[in-house]
């Protein structure tokens, strides 16, 4: 056992000696969390709009007031003609132009129908959709109130409860994904690079002829990263909790258990990558493109899986982070226990076994 511990110690010394990588190792998760938590917003706020009011009567003013009072929109300016819309969009700051038709209040009163046009800058289609949707909601709430004011009219009210995330915080969506991303980065990428470096610099030979068994070599390489990843995971959860009020509604033990499962899985992936890479650069690129990018895009982290074309959905389903993110969200935000996530957990365990067996088969104890 002593040679094994000595080996692990050597690995730790190697890691800590490389200050720059260390900074990235610990700095990246913190920076990611901060960015995703504070900066990346899917909701809209203070959207600059312009209004072309051809009526300028009490009704249009009331509707305008409501729109501006909602907090989502900010009035940039009033337009005077239809042609100004294009100019104003091209300049880039205004995202929506609301056009009230002539004689708005009159027509609403006499003909019972008036028109509003919403012009949205759809170069960012998501925002455009949200902007139009929110505007429509505000206007239709207004017209409902007007209609239900006559005493004989019936009122139907619907109340919405936002479950698990009453304030609609973005952090709830992003922090779990960031955790998966960071663990993938540290565990898989660093491990694969570390093992490959030994191969590349030739020190692997020395290790192989030492009394250490191949299994011990791998385990020794991997142990420091397990510990580092776990620390990272805890830091992320703590930051999520204290800075973003992200709750941990479920069992902490289960959370840590699943985290360790995922870390081990990522590590086994890292080992597998190292068995197919001859140089560090190759290991790096494989990790980055086969792990990093897919984790960010195909795991349901930012873009919902259900909306992707079927081909890509299949790809998502073979990505471990997809399942891990579901598990984390469930445990942390919905407070569920193993009962709801046993399927995903089983899949992760299966993947772990699969990757480990491939790595074991491929790890060459002799050199070419």
């Amino acid at each position: 056992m002593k040679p094994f511990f000595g080996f692990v110690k050597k690995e730790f010394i190697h890691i800590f000696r490389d200050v720059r990588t260390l900074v990235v190792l610990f700095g990246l998760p913190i920076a990611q969390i901060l960015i995703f938590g504070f900066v990346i917003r899917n909701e809209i706020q203070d959207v600059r709009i312009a209004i072309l009011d051809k009526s300028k009567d009490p009704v249009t003013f009331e509707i305008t007031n409501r729109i501006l009072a909602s907090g989502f929109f900010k009035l940039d300016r009033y337009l005077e003609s239809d042609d100004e819309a294009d100019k104003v969009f091209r300049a880039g700051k205004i995202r929506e132009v609301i056009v009230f038709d002539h004689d708005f209040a009159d027509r609403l009163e006499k003909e019972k129908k008036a028109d509003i046009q919403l012009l949205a800058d759809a170069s960012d289609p998501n925002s455009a959709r949200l902007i139009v949707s929110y505007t429509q909601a505000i206007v239709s709430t207004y017209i409902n109130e007007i209609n239900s004011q006559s005493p004989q009219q019936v009122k139907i009210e619907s109340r919405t409860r936002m479950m698990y995330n009453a304030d609609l915080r973005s952090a709830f969506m992003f922090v779990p994904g960031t955790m998966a991303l960071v663990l993938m980065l540290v565990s898989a990428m660093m491990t694969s690079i570390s093992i490959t470096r030994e191969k590349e610099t030739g020190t692997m030979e020395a290790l192989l002829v030492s009394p250490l068994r191949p299994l011990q070599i791998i385990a020794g390489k991997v142990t420091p990263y397990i510990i580092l990843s776990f620390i990272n995971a805890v830091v992320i959860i703590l930051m999520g909790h204290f800075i973003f009020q992200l709750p941990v509604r479920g069992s902490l033990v289960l959370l840590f258990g699943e985290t360790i499962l995922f870390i081990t899985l990522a590590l086994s992936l890292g080992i597998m990558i190292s068995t197919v890479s001859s140089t560090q650069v190759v290991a790096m690129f494989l990790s980055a493109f086969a792990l990093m990018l897919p984790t960010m895009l195909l795991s349901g982290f930012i873009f919902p899986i259900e909306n992707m074309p079927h081909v890509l959905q299949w790809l998502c389903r073979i990505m471990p982070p997809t399942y891990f993110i579901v598990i984390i969200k469930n445990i942390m935000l919905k407070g569920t226990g193993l009962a709801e996530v046993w399927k995903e957990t089983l899949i992760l365990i299966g993947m772990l076994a699969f990757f480990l067996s491939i790595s074991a088969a491929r790890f060459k104890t002799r050199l070419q």
Partner: protein
Amino acid sequence: MLIVQKEFLQIFRNKTMIPMIFLLPFVQLLILVNAAIMDMKNIEMIVVDKDLSSLSTELTEKFAQSPFFTVVRPGFSVKQAEEAMLGNKTDMILIVPSGFEQQVYHQGKADLQIQIDAINGMTAGLMNNYATQIINSFYFAVLQETGNNVLMKNNVKSISMNHRFWYNSQLNFKYYMVPGILAILLTVIGMFLASLNLVREKEIGTIEQINVTPIRKYHFIIGKLLPFWIIAMFELMFGLALGKILFDIPMEGNLLLLFGFAALYLIAVLGIGLFISTLCETQQQAQFLNFFVLITFVMLSGIFTPAESMPHWAQNLNVINPIAYFIRINRMVLLKGSEFRDIAGDYISIGVIAIFLISLAIWKYRKIA
């Protein structure tokens, strides 16, 4: 400029380089753009109908017929429905209280309850809006039915809202993503590869040999950076062509404006790459540092989520983020056909940033190992 020639030879001799240059944009554009869709279709919902009247059935039908919603199943108990939501089996629950029809026709007031899985704040907001609209149109139908006399029925006021989506009427998310991805592509080549290239020389040791030659520092740096500048500009052309062929992205504006901006942008980004290379001893460190800076700036730049939605301090930070400028200009020129006077301010900004960054990097770079 023999050193430029030598650099080109070295770059292309590296077997991984060529597939990177040609495959990477292809792969990125294909996968990223197709994955990055934010449409809302098939929102799964459970209707807990405690009334089971013809009116409530009508309401359920309205939801079922909507292209946005899929009524997964009717439920009979709220508890069951909530459990389904816990188990990720449904996104939304609509609860119709018992006595709904009675309340509407005879008491004049009725309530509905909606529960939405709000973990994804944005989609939750959208779901709520869609649901509200369906309920509103149902409400109109009810109003017209229940008006006590002809006068009442005709008293129902409505505001019709037409919306038009400009520059991207199909709300094609690909139009939004392709300019952003092109920006990342150029940045990877300009910053990442250039930086790596420089550090490799350091790591291998050949840099010492170059240092003892009479070549001046400026010539050496230009020689190292120019090939990547050229390759990146080529990538822009290649990427735009691919974008046109694969996705038929619009090219409303003057492409020269775009290339001009890219030229300045690349200088800025090469400066960052050079600066990073002076901080690192090994390629691995360079990779990580580059990756770190890249990810941070890219996320801040508004590629996935709008920069205008970010908190003010982040938007202020974006003033010095070259990527933010490039992505914005990309989108404005390609999708909206913005002209020079619209982006003149940005041109000046990127010029200033570029000069600052490249000077900083050159100053830091010393002709010592």
